[in-house]
């Protein structure tokens, strides 16, 4: 089965590309502190809303430089944060340059960054209101946004698959109660339920607490739909002979469900998981965007976008919207991949698409 999945994904160019993009993004997130030129919380108070610095190979006279460089940006209007490019001063970009100290993979202390300038500043995607580098924050924020999808899906799918399995396998009263429960959860509008559950807890929590709180809230909302589908599948799987065989040698019910029945739903779970990850990423972004999620100074794509809630900021400094583009790319990649997986694993759905 595994070969055929890769075969289909390879054949589907877009899905293959998405897989690459996801791989690169996760790589960037893991090595964020090495790749980003600045730490996520380093403030350059003298350059708020610094525009993105263009990387040049040719200077203003048209001379080619082998080493790329950026020009100096001078703050000419401190009130409206207007900058002027000073073409007289160039800052060459060095690779493997020394910068702020960080711990690579959380273990190895080092102060080497992938790239940077020795003097002056480099803001690939501009800076925010406190002069923090948006590119660096984007990389650090990717850690939150990219991991929350996976952690959330793992949690809610474990719950959903287990409850669906129990419900379908035992049937009767257990089934009835569990399914009514899932209906209740599904009857609430997701966004409101998310807000209401968030309201139970204090607004100010540490970022780690909020991270897990978001995972728990999203999983609490997310398991119900999955459990219903899995239950439907289990209803037919439990009638098959290998289940009878497992019963006859005395396997416990839990063992039959987790070892014999649920593995048969694996291909569906994989498709559904890939297509559900965007929901978790969006949920986190939405909460953080509204100030109920990951708190400053920690970066997440959602709380970076909350700067854009001021209309005047969007108008004058549109580069603060770049986390939105990152969210778009990651969601597109997961959707394309999920679609390709569905085509590969589920021939019944393949016919028309």
């Amino acid at each position, binding site marked *: 089965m595994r070969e055929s999945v890769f075969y289909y994904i390879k054949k589907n160019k877009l899905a293959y590309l998405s897989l690459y993009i996801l791989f690169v993004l996760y790589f960037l997130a893991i090595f964020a502190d090495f790749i980003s030129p600045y730490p996520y919380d380093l403030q350059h108070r003298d350059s708020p809303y610094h525009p993105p610095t263009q990387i040049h190979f040719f200077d203003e006279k048209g001379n080619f430089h082998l080493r790329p460089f950026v020009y100096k940006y001078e703050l000419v209007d401190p009130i409206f944060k207007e900058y002027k490019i000073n073409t007289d001063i160039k800052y060459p970009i060095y690779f493997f340059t020394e910068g702020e100290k960080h711990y690579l993979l959380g273990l190895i202390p080092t102060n080497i960054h992938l790239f940077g300038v020795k003097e002056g500043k480099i803001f690939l995607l501009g800076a925010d209101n406190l002069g923090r580098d948006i590119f660096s924050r984007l990389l650090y924020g990717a850690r939150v946004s990219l991991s929350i999808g996976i952690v959330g899906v793992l949690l809610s799918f474990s719950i959903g698959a287990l409850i669906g399995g129990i419900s379908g396998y035992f049937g009767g009263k257990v089934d009835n109660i569990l399914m009514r429960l899932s209906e209740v959860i599904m*009857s*609430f*509008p997701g966004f409101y339920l998310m807000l*209401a559950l968030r309201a*139970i807890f204090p607004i100010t929590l540490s970022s780690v607490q909020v991270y897990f709180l978001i995972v728990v809230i999203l999983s609490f909302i997310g398991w119900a739909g999955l459990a219903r589908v899995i239950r439907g599948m289990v209803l037919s799987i439990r009638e098959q002979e290998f289940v009878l065989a497992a019963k006859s040698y005395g396997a416990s019910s839990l063992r039959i469900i987790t070892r014999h029945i649920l593995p048969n739903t694996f291909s569906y779970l994989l498709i559904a998981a890939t297509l559900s990850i965007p929901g978790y990423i969006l949920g986190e972004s939405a909460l953080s965007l509204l100030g109920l999620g990951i708190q400053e100074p920690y970066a997440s794509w959602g709380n970076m976008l909350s700067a854009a809630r001021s*209309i005047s900021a969007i*108008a004058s400094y549109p580069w603060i919207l770049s986390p939105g583009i990152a969210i778009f790319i990651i969601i597109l990649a997961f959707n*394309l991949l999920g679609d390709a997986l569905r085509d590969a694993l589920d021939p019944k759905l393949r016919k*028309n698409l």
Partner: protein
Amino acid sequence: MFLYILKRLIQMVPLVIGITFLSFIIIQMAPGDYLDKLKMNPQISQETLERLKQTYGLDQPILVQYFKWLINALKFDLGYSFSYHVPVIEIIKERVGNTLFLSITSAVLAWGLAVPLGIIAAVKPNTIIDKFIQLFSFTFMSIPNFFLAFLMLFVAVKTGIFPTGGATSPDYEQLSLLGKIADRLWHVSLPAFVLAVGSLAGLVRLVRSTMLESLQAEYVLFARAKGLKEKDIILRHALKNALNPFITLLGFEIASLLSGAALVEIIVNWPGMGMLMLDAVLSQDLYLVMGGLYIGAIMLIIGNLIADILLAKIDPRVRQREVEGVLK
């Protein structure tokens, strides 16, 4: 048919009990109770506090409290807002109109465009038009609607075509009736567009795939063999048989009328339910939060009920299975 509706209504009872119970538990779990905040307010007298305590039964055991709350909630008496100092239902009533206006406009836009576009894509599969429609739907399915809202706000600020917030202009009261209508439509255009594009993208995909399936069916072949006009085949035979999933979706649409637009509302400053819920959460105004949650859930159940009834009315197969099954 009447019996069928009755059966569905009876089935709803445990659901409503479950929803209200969960809502109630969420209130109970939150720190502090309803009166704690009122006690801080010197304007509220001791007698009022006592009266409120009795109305909501706060001195009684939790289950009794729950049933009191349930009976009140069924009468849409959802308690008293801490921050607005008026009954929750009053505040919700004020905001519901704006939200419904926005979501109905966007739903009409989305459905009005999705059905023809999906049919075009299905009738001519794998042509350039089809590829383009698919590309469009895939792209916009993946753009988070809050991000699209930000982008549109950026366009609005730069060009001035759209207003950048609110439901009406400051001089709304002075406008003539036509002016008022135009002003409202002008203000709703941006959020409605954002919401419509998002749901349009998903809908087009669904219309296309169900239409494709329906067009391959044998009755379509038969209709072709009879020499019917292509237009009649598509609209009267293929489309009619492809309708079922849309009826179910229409139910979801009704269900999400109140809550679907919440995040976009907040971003474009639309004075609707979304903003209200966010404010309520930020100020820990629990009864307001629960009120919104409860009404949203009731809408969802009603939406599903309407969809089921419509489905039974339109599709004789469903009618036979469900309605006559009840009578036997």
